[in-house]
């Protein structure tokens, strides 16, 4: 394609980029300089190449030219600024108007994403091409490759979820997730994908016991991995943490050998859930015992997890306010500078 020859070269001189304004095939088109106005602000000192390419892009846009040379120019414009969504939009218009080879476009976008995997436009463009081709067959492998370079790339995961959901490619995804978790059990994106796959396939009712097992297994290996604890809580929360028989006991056991701020927070959540969702037959005394245990954990966390001290103290006050008995001997939590104040004295936050 004659429009792809950007370099002139001779034996002796290294190839240089030939400006569009010097290319004879473009002589008929008047470039359109950027109109920033007389006193520009945030004025970028564009390179000569950048100005040249975009002056011609603006000219094409102005005329709504739909040609091969326009298409070739969009590649140049994208290389200079892959975040220019106006150029991408125009490229898509041209892809359709010129009935371009979409397989070739897939190869193109694959290369661009490999170079710039954290850009919104490139992933959106790929999605459009996949939709037009109605062919997701390369996607899972491609995304896996991107994730092998950055296992938490948000755009990659977004694209992956879209492909899987749109084309119903669920079958191998749990295996894929498990492999990623083998590599890095702290990969929160992989834990999220695990949740995604299970919610959309088996659901959590049948899978619950297996998932709890899996979490506890990972927690025993790395007790300070927040992702595993968050996942455990996340899957149990809809049913209520205190609804799972034997769980509290298992966690209390773990406390002896595998303690962490996350374990303590989980215990608190169990106690809180017990208080919130207590059945009719739970005695007041039992409730107060649970409350006491919960408040002790808040105290402990306020001392151990000091970055969240304000929060743990609030949780304690809030829980006590909600479930506490009206026992006048109750003292405010130690080290808590803000004892409860009756509502009528509260300042308005208007």
């Amino acid at each position, binding site marked *: 394609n004659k429009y792809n020859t950007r370099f002139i070269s001779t034996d002796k001189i290294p190839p240089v980029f030939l400006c569009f304004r010097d290319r004879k095939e473009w002589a008929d088109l008047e470039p359109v300089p950027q109109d920033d106005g007389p006193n520009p602000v945030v004025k970028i*000192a564009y390179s000569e190449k950048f100005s040249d390419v975009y002056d011609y892009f603006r000219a094409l846009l102005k005329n709504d030219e739909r040609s091969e040379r326009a298409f070739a120019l969009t590649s140049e414009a994208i290389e*200079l600024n892959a975040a220019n969504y106006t150029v991408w939009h125009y490229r898509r218009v041209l892809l359709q108007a010129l009935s371009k080879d979409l397989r070739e476009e897939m190869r193109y976008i694959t290369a661009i994403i490999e170079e710039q995997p954290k850009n919104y436009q490139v992933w959106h463009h790929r999605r459009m091409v996949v939709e037009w081709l109605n062919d997701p067959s390369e996607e899972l492998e491609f995304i896996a490759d991107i994730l092998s370079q950055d296992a938490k790339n948000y755009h990659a995961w977004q694209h992956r979820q879209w492909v899987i959901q749109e084309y119903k490619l669920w079958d191998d995804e749990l295996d894929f997730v498990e492999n990623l978790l083998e590599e890095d059990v702290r990969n929160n994106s992989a834990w999220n994908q695990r949740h995604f796959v299970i919610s959309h396939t088996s659901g959590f009712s049948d899978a619950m016991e297996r998932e709890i097992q899996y979490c506890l297994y990972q927690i025993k290996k*790395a007790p300070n991995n927040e992702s595993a604890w968050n996942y455990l809580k996340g899957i149990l929360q809809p049913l209520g943490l205190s609804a799972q028989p034997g769980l509290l006991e298992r966690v209390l056991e773990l406390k002896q050998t595998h303690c962490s701020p996350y374990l303590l927070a989980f215990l608190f959540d169990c106690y809180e859930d017990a208080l919130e969702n207590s059945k009719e037959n739970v005695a007041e005394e039992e409730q107060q015992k649970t409350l006491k245990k919960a408040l002790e954990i808040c105290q402990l966390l306020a001392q151990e997890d000091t970055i969240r001290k304000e929060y743990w103290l609030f949780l304690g006050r809030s829980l006590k306010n909600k479930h506490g008995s009206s026992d006048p001997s109750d003292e405010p939590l130690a080290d808590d500078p803000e004892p409860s104040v009756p509502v009528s004295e509260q300042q308005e936050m208007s």
Partner: protein
Amino acid sequence: MDGVPTPLRCFNECHSAAMFVDDGVETVTSREQKKVERSIEEVFSVYKQIHSLPQPTLLREQHYQYLKKGLRHLSDAYECLDASRPWLCFWILHSLELLEEPIPAAVASDVCHFLARCQSPAGGFAGGPGQHAHLAPTYAAVNALCIIGTEQAYNIIDREKLLDFLMSVKQPDGSFVMHVGGEVDVRSAYCAASVASLTNILTPKLFEDTTNWILSCQNWEGGLSGVPGLEAHGGYTFCGTAALVILGKEHMLDLKALLRWVVSRQMRFEGGFQGRCNKLVDGCYSFWQAGLLPLLHRALFKQGESELSRQRWMFEQQALQEYILLCCQNPTGGLVDKPGKSRDFYHTCYCLSGLSIAQHFGNMDLHHEMILGKEDNRLAPTHPVYNICPEKVAQALQHFHRLPVPDGNRQPGASADASVSDPTANSGLGDHQS
């Protein structure tokens, strides 16, 4: 008080106990985290050695010069932001307003003219003159114009066309695409809600089903994702939550779960915030994450929570200020993600915005300041929904609420001098939603 320096948390003997525990199981995540902690430890240690009396100092003059220059000229390194120039205006103007540096009238006028050239004939603002309209530069342009706050600035916005643009990117499921033919994610709802509420073009139809779509972004972690199904992320969580606050529907979130998620994002050792669980600290999350706490505080208060503090947000304000002042300032001006990273206007804006949040508790009626270091470190307060100064929000609302909502769809019961509602005042704009 200038005389008595507060002991820094990061100089506490026990502070190294807050470092990451890898349980002997090394993975990419733990390696990266430990690397960052070592570099932060180095910064803390160097600071300790140089300064006998720790008084972290905001490098006002250096930041001011960096911002002043950038507002006019940017090097070719900024070619990658050629489709985000209204953002550059916002990041720089907001930083200047936080630093309480006045914007000369001529500069303000030039910004107005430039943003006028970024406005699309079809409505909304684009990343640069001649480009297509996009919700992100639209958000940035409207905010920048509201910071300027002159009649000239307000008059730049074509409200009728702006509403047309918002309707043109609205999707049947309640979400918005970022631009015609573009991608969907929760940022778009925030951008749309922000500009619509400030310029008084909110109609019931505009945000129909948007609340439910945003709610579907709250996930098993308690935070919000960019689109339903993805991982909870600070930027997206802020956008979704702030959008719901504007629509008066934040109570429909699981606020307790969201609160737990966001407070867990503050890093024990570094003091700053991470964007997602098990990822690295980044100065910009000083706003996206910490900024959620004022929103949640108010939301919980509205729900009848009686045990909220009257002096502090529910994050470690001092630790965040230490991280920003000690680790995120470039000595030649500008702020950064973390030590070793280059400065840029995005991080300058959001580090300063986060610093402001950490310094100021409350609002007009109840205000408690906690300034780390010199009194001169004090920044102007910022509005936690819009991230421009609260006075500018009030002024813009007052201006635009005197104008009729375009399309003849006036809000039920509204009159020309109806009282203006700040979404963080008692009446949510969502009261008018169908």
